[in-house]
């Protein structure tokens, strides 16, 4: 049988075996929040978690990342490319929604004539061990965006939490090789597989939030200039928590950071957010999106209208982070309801007429 069993007690063994080959990232508790960070000790791994606060995208697309380093020698410049892009990474414990976000990010960074090597190389050299989501939160809606709490596709190895042990399934070639290497894993019994299926079913049934995003996209395409945007943006304070915690947000700013003492520096990219008024401000003073209403609209349009037309899928993985992070509770579910209301009203009028 292909499926294996990993006892939770054996995580240490797994770690010590893989840690030599991979940079091992796993969920840890940092100041009370779950975050994916590189661990140096198996004790740091936090196995009981709903989902991390900051999505694991920051392992492959960190908030601050060096693009290249440079050195000045008189008037000459020497550019040093990064050499650590092909180091092997292993990200342990990624939820299916976040794993799916890696696929979206990959599509985005490979889109067009230019490939973002900084991201793609790291993505290529990373292995993702996903974990099924036994307890989706109320704010989760991955099933509405084509996901599933036990979706395996974007992971390399997929684990299902069966209490004191994990059911291990190798998904990709990379994952199969990895599982082959861990020869000490015991074979799974049929009961284990059945239990996993049952958990998946339970998780799926527990979703309370369901959207029809095809309809949302259609309504958005037709209603760029609708008064509803005023209503939606009204209570937004533009704090950008939603974009900073979003697993699919990719916008960044590029900055040169100098070490004046040693005539050297690095060009870095840092996360930026479309919710900031400075994001689009041109040097001339002209700003294409000066108002909050335009910035709010851009975020929603980008995820649910522009993304589908460029990549044929919604730019959202349904993790619900923006819903729980919004301090004024101007959350996505309400926004989408408001958008769908437009359609309902129109239909209603048509019927009555």
């Amino acid at each position, binding site marked *: 049988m292909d499926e294996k069993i990993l006892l939770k007690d054996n995580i240490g063994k797994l770690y010590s075996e893989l840690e030599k080959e991979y940079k091992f990232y796993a969920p840890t508790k*940092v*100041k*009370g*929040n*779950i975050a994916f960070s590189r661990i140096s000790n198996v004790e740091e791994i*936090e196995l*009981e*978690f*709903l989902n991390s*606060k*900051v999505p694991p995208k920051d392992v492959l697309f960190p*908030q*601050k990342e060096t693009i290249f380093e440079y050195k000045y020698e008189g008037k000459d410049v020497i550019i040093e490319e990064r050499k650590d892009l092909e180091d092997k990474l292993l990200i342990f414990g990624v939820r299916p929604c976040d794993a799916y976000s890696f696929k979206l990010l990959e599509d985005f960074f490979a889109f067009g004539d230019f490939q973002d090597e900084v991201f793609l190389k790291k993505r290529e050299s990373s292995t993702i061990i996903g974990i099924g989501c036994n*307890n989706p*939160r*109320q*704010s989760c809606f991955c099933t509405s965006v084509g996901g599933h709490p036990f979706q395996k596709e974007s992971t390399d190895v997929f684990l299902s939490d069966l209490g004191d042990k994990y059911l291990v399934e190798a998904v990709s070639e990379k994952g199969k090789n990895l599982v082959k290497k861990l020869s000490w894993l015991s074979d799974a019994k049929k009961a284990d597989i059945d239990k996993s299926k049952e958990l998946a079913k339970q998780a799926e049934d527990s979703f309370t939030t369901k959207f029809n995003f095809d309809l949302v996209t259609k309504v958005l395409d037709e209603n760029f200039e609708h008064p509803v945007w*005023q209503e939606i943006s*009204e*209570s937004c*304070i*533009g*704090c*950008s*928590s939603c*974009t*900073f*915690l979003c697993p699919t947000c990719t916008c960044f*700013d590029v*900055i040169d*950071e100098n070490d004046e003492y040693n005539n050297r520096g690095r060009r*870095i990219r*840092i*996360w930026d*957010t479309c919710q*900031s008024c*400075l994001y689009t401000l041109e040097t001339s003073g002209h700003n294409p999106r000066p108002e909050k*209403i335009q910035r709010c609209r851009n975020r929603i349009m980008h995820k649910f209208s522009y993304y589908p037309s460029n990549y044929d899928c919604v730019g959202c993985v349904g993790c619900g982070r923006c*819903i*729980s*992070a*919004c*301090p*004024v*509770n*101007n*959350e996505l*579910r*309400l926004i989408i309801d408001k958008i769908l209301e437009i359609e309902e009203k129109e239909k209603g009028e048509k019927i009555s007429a």
Partner: protein
Amino acid sequence: MVIIVGLETENKDIENNMQEIAKGLLKEKKVDVIIGYKKGTLPLLSQPIIIDKEEDVDKLLWNNLCYVNLAKYLVPRVPRFVDSEKGNLKVGVVAKGCVGRGLIHLASENKINLDEITIIGIPCNGVVNRQRVEMEIGEKEILEVSVLGNNVIVKGKDFEKEFPFDEYMNELCKGCKIRKPSLVSKFPDLCVGECEEYSNIVDEFDDIAEFESKTPEEKWEYITEALSVCTRCYACREACPMCYCNLCFVDQNKPVWFGKTTDLPDIIVYHLIRAMHMAGRCVACGACSLVCPMGIDLNFINRKLEKIVKERFDFTSGLDPDTLPPMVDFKMEDAEEFMLEED
């Protein structure tokens, strides 16, 4: 310490009074719109709401989760507060003590015109420290929050936990001396509902005395530890009613003053300068801490600011629109013990 008797009934009373007043104001056309709070869609949140119809008054609510400082929506005014013909509308603001302070302080900085607003004062009984509760529940989902007696009860799928409210209040609320908006004698029509006249506010600042007695190294360690998780999303800035600059110092690029990265020195500098700008202006609403997605507690910095301003300049922000804020004022006899002198 304020003694709270039956939080639940108290909240209900506040809510009923508030709705009554709001209804009256809208009926008599004393205000065009009212901004207040309504029930949030998540258990630990409330949602700001703007109403302009009498029948919507029932949506207004007061509970211990109403932590957004509504003064934020007046600088700049959200578009609904400005009519294309009438100009600025008359806005009623549901105001706990710190919202009232925010409005009055903004008036002292000439940012808002008190003639155009009505403060619907409510006697605030504190807000829940959402981050602390969330962190203590840990990795479980909170499904329901209710108030019973003096406890906040948090329920989830397979757990139920009680938090004594006076301990799990937001840090700034614990020692809050200004629970109702201040009465401004010059504007008799400004305040409706419960407001209070404050004379001298006595505050011992015991809570930060201990921190201050630490050595620089200990303080540095504490500060860097507390701020290191900051993601520089600037939610604290955006939620703050006093942060209304068109171009914040961190965004200025001619010249670039400070780094924009999440390296520790850059984070520290951001919070240090922001604190500098808040001196004598912070109205102790705690919104910055409560909106922080990473749960950083900025309140102890705000307390320190309050202390400096109180001790040095005997000033409490947001009580009187006619007193000049301390940072634009000076006295010949200001203390200068920190100046370098010959031995």
